[in-house]
């Protein structure tokens, strides 16, 4: 607008993590834990184990389902956390002004990263044979009847410089390196933000822009490689060259949905009064646009494999589409993550009003969690997978823990980057 009013916003506001909000989150945690407990009991006593044993496959144990569920949530919530840091860095690299008041919300998601890293590594060591086929030593032994030439050819990617089939040093080193650098950059951003709050001036903005650029270069590589390591290597024989982007797109939509939901939640509690429907509209456009981007990648991967019809590639989709367990979820996945956001968020009004966005973003979080379940389960559980109480309970437990950590961290610092040089531009943001 050409005629600006005077703005008197409270820039020192802090989010009050009240006892009642804590109680709601802990209630979800307890409910999730109870559902998870019932799910585990049902999995232990459940009767569908005999089929696997009868078919000559390795016997299915209930805890494999627990491990797969842990892994899905590790990968999914790690993605949300790192996307918070990634989207924060993008704002500086793109010199964006509109987002200045919600920068701290993006950054706060990164507080889950250290915990996610520990959980990821711990789960890997507990569950390695049950989740990752390539961890079995016999695959690399030429004298073993189960020797696998193809996996042997890929062995160095996991085990270098160790002997194949022993300790996956290269794989673990990458995991530690990625989490290490992500947490390092996240702490750097937090540190510069704190300095900016104290000292002011535009020098911190320039510093942040440089560090954002370094981070984005590192993230460009690490996001793809982590997707190969943590998700694609489950189906060890199979590969897809755009898989890294596909996982990234799923992460990005989930992260954007989480950011949008937290912003709307804070606005609902009376914080962030400078964030108006124009900023919300921009967040809505991101969610809308990147839902289409996710669909584009999902479909690009599917169509080429479907059309070329090469058995070593089609196996991935045959495992899913020809399965009683997974084939309905393929369509649920597309419905929740494409058709719903596409048609609901298409109009301008629905992107500017919190009601629609809250609904769509919540559904998208569930939708992309189902997407990750569909990536992980067929290769780990085969026909013993599915969405049961165990999976739902685990999702609620992880979700409430992430919410607790993120909101708790948000309450400790200023909610607004009060000395950000583009705050004034953001107040007058109008689209």
């Amino acid at each position, binding site marked *: *607008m*050409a*005629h600006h009013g005077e703005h008197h916003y409270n820039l020192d506001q802090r989010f009050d993590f009240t006892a009642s909000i804590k109680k709601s989150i802990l209630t979800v945690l307890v409910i999730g834990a109870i559902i998870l407990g019932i799910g585990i009991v049902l999995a232990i006593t459940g009767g569908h184990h005999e089929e696997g044993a009868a078919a000559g496959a390795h016997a299915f144990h209930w805890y494999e389902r627990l491990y797969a569920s842990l892994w899905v949530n590790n990968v999914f919530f790690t993605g949300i956390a790192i996307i918070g840091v990634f989207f924060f860095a993008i704002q500086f690299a793109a010199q964006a002004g509109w987002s200045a008041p919600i920068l701290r919300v993006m950054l706060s998601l990164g507080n889950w990263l250290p915990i996610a890293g520990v959980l990821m590594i711990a789960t890997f060591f507990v569950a390695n044979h049950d989740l990752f086929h390539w961890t079995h030593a016999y695959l690399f032994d030429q004298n073993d009847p189960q020797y696998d030439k193809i996996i042997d050819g890929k062995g160095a990617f996991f085990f270098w410089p160790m002997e194949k089939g022993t300790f996956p040093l290269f794989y673990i080193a990458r995991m530690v390196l990625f989490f290490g650098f992500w947490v390092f950059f996240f702490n750097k951003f937090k540190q510069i933000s704190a300095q900016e709050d104290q000292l002011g001036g535009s020098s911190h903005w320039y510093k942040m822009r440089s560090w954002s650029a370094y981070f984005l270069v590192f993230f460009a590589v690490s996001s793809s490689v982590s997707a190969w390591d943590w998700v694609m290597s489950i189906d060890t024989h199979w590969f897809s060259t755009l898989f890294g982007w596909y996982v990234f797109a799923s992460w990005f939509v989930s992260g954007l949905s989480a950011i949008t939901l937290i912003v709307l939640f804070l606005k609902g509690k009376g914080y962030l009064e400078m964030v108006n429907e124009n900023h919300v509209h921009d967040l809505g456009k991101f969610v809308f646009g990147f839902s289409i981007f996710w669909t584009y990648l999902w*479909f690009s991967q*599917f*169509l080429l494999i*479907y*059309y*070329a*019809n090469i058995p070593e590639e089609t196996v991935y989709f045959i495992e899913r589409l020809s399965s009683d367990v997974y084939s309905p979820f393929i369509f649920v996945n597309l419905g929740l993550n494409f058709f719903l956001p596409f048609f609901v968020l*298409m*109009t*301008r009004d629905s992107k500017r009003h919190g009601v629609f966005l809250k609904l769509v973003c919540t559904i998208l979080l569930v939708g992309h969690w189902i997407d990750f379940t569909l990536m992980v389960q067929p290769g780990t559980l085969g026909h013993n997978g599915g969405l049961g109480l165990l999976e739902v309970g685990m999702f609620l437990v992880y979700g409430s823990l992430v919410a607790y950590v993120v909101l708790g961290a948000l309450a400790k610092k200023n909610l607004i980057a009060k000395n950000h040089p583009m705050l004034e531009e953001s107040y007058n943001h*109008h689209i």
Partner: protein
Amino acid sequence: MERDTHFILGVYDDEDVLLHAVEKVRGSGVKIHEVYSPYPVHGLEHVLGYKRSKLPIAAFLFGMLGTSLALTMQFYMMKFDWPMIIGGKDHAAFPDFIPVSFEMTVLLAAFGMVGVFLITSNLKPWAQPRIFDLRSTDDKHILAIDLANNSSMKLEKIKEILTDSGATEVNKKSFD
């Protein structure tokens, strides 16, 4: 034709003054015909009270038309007109149709939107635009008031409102 031919023009130097002037002029009950500016003035359509464009609806409908045309075309060709087996797939293999349907959706949405925009904005190649003041293509904002729409107001009163709102000149313009 008597109507639509006699106009009072307010000439403004500055977009801030213009935006306030539009509010004042409309507030005093004068109906504005149109404002001509050398560049897009942010917020002008808002103070002029323009309703939101319906162009996105046209784009959506043309896009849907593109999708249905593309799907119909492909189904007709591949299933009935000239069935071929490609890559061992069904004749009507739906996933194969999506890239073409997507492209046709985008093409018709874009063409339809441009066409509707040109027609509703009277940008036909043979259209003869009325030039109110040539300086509106250079450095002046021109606020045009149609006298036929403001017959209840005295001419002198309108001129006074324009001058008070910060117009550097107030001119009369008639078209044949």
